[in-house]
């Protein structure tokens, strides 16, 4: 291995195992299988010990040997190490012995887990000499690319479907990104973005940079294991859009076992989707190893991917870990958002509602045992999807500026038991 590649060895096809140089490329030229970063674990083992990790700053980069950059990161160096909250009040409501929330709703700088993958993709893009970065997104990814690119002076192009809500567009425009709205059906927009990625010499974070980008998700697994006191959780409930996050969290757990950083233990990885876009959970529940594409129709826009690129691999991971999958309706998503907010003081975006709602179902059905321990991954902040809960949380009660009126209101509420 050459020194300038850090701890990476090559890009490797997940289908046929053929190896490729560590450039900006993402599919195998032979079978079009996705490429993944392969590491030199023997070297990593010598460098990455618990003591070494604990001595480093509390960011996702404390595990840098396991992240695909050749040198020190240059973008998003403060990302990650979000809180892992012991959620006793929610545990009681869901009827499980021990419950934790991994809270990426407060990730830096754009309040979603996407900052993890983007900081890796952009750091690697700079190493490879790119000056322009791009993505196609309906929300969180666009915000993160725009913000992280701005923070280091990279030029950014963000492609969005033209019918996206104003608030989401503003969250990218404010950083000075070039925001391009594409008219047309989702399929057409998707194909155009793939074409643009192939034609222009840009780092398209989730296309030609995808092998690096996707690896950033593993840091969520490392943090969970460390924050639990160097052990793996029995159950992890993860939202699924493309399915990539689920496969990478599992990979992260496996790597920690391989490196001897945690003991091997029984781990179940569960996937959560919205009923209005549930190709992976539907296939999992039917016992299939493939999914059928769907047209998304759900308030959980950040999970609305009808043809998930890593769906096949997510199904495989759930099968191998005896994990389960469920999906929840829009109403169940809203209820779960409120439940999490009221019990733990965490306001999650719709994807968080999906994960909490699915955890509730899996515990109720016995697929997650009541006497076990589980971690729920919350991947984005509720302030980003205010529209989804608007009109569903009640209204403030109005009074005149009079103490008597306030006391009257209180005594009336006490009577009706509010």
């Amino acid at each position, binding site marked *: 291995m050459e020194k300038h590649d850090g701890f990476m060895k090559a890009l490797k096809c997940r289908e046929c195992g053929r190896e490729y140089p560590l450039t900006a490329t993402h599919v195998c030229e032979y079978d079009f299988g996705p490429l993944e970063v392969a590491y030199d674990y023997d070297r990593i083992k010598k460098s990455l010990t618990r003591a070494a990790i604990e001595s480093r700053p509390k960011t996702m980069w404390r595990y840098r040997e396991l992240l695909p950059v050749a040198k020190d990161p240059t973008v998003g160096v403060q990302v990650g190490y979000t809180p892992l909250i012991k959620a006793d009040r929610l545990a009681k409501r869901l009827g499980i012995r021990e419950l934790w929330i991994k809270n990426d709703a407060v990730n830096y700088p754009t309040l979603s887990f996407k900052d993890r993958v983007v900081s890796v993709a952009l750091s690697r893009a700079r190493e490879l000499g790119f000056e322009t970065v791009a993505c196609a997104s309906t929300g969180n990814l666009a915000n993160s690319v725009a913000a992280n690119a701005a923070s280091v002076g990279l030029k950014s192009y963000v492609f969005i479907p033209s019918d996206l809500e104003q608030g989401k567009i503003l969250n990218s425009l404010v950083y000075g990104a070039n925001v391009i709205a594409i008219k047309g059906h989702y399929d057409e927009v998707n194909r155009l973005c793939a074409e643009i990625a192939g034609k222009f010499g840009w780092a398209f974070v*989730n296309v030609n940079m995808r092998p690096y980008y996707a690896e950033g998700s593993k840091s969520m697994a490392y943090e969970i294991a460390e924050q639990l006191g160097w052990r793996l959780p029995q159950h992890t409930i993860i939202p699924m859009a493309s399915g990539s996050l689920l496969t990478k969290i599992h990979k992260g757990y496996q790597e920690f076992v391989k490196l001897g950083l945690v003991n091997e233990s029984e781990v179940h990885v569960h996937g959560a989707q919205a009923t209005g876009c549930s190709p992976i959970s539907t296939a999992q529940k039917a016992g299939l190893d493939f999914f059928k594409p769907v047209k998304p129709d759900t308030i959980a826009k950040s999970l609305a991917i009808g043809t998930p690129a890593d769906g096949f691999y997510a199904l495989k991971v759930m099968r191998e870990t005896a994990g389960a999958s469920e999906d929840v309706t829009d109403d169940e998503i809203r209820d779960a958002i409120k439940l999490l907010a009221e019990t733990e003081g965490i306001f999650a975006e719709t994807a968080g509602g999906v994960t909490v709602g699915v955890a509730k179902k899996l515990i109720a059905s016995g697929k997650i045992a009541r006497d076990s321990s589980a971690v729920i991954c919350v991947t984005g902040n509720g302030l980003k999807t205010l529209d989804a809960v608007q009109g569903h949380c009640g209204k403030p009660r109005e009074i005149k500026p009079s103490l008597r009126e306030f006391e009257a209101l209180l005594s009336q509420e006490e009577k009706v038991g509010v």
Partner: protein
Amino acid sequence: MAKAPTIKKTKAKAKAAPTTGLSPNRQRLWLMYPPKLIKEPLIWKLGHKFNVVTNIRQASVTDEIGVVCLELDGKRDDVQAAVEWLEKTGVNVEPVEMSAIAG
């Protein structure tokens, strides 16, 4: 995705992998056939109707779904027309990247 393990792929000779991009008019696509189209020789028809070169790289066919990984090469308008015809016929067409639009 239905990169089904049932298909035994022919291993090409291992050699240094190319790192260059595609020719501008070449598209790499996943085709997903619904059950009613599984018996139709659509790629043969495609090759006769449009001036495009078809190159199958992977395929998996079950009773439930047919999945073909196809490379299409030709003039941009011909490739576009071929894709539109496939969609009109009822085939789901996605770039190999699939979820190029993320959340």
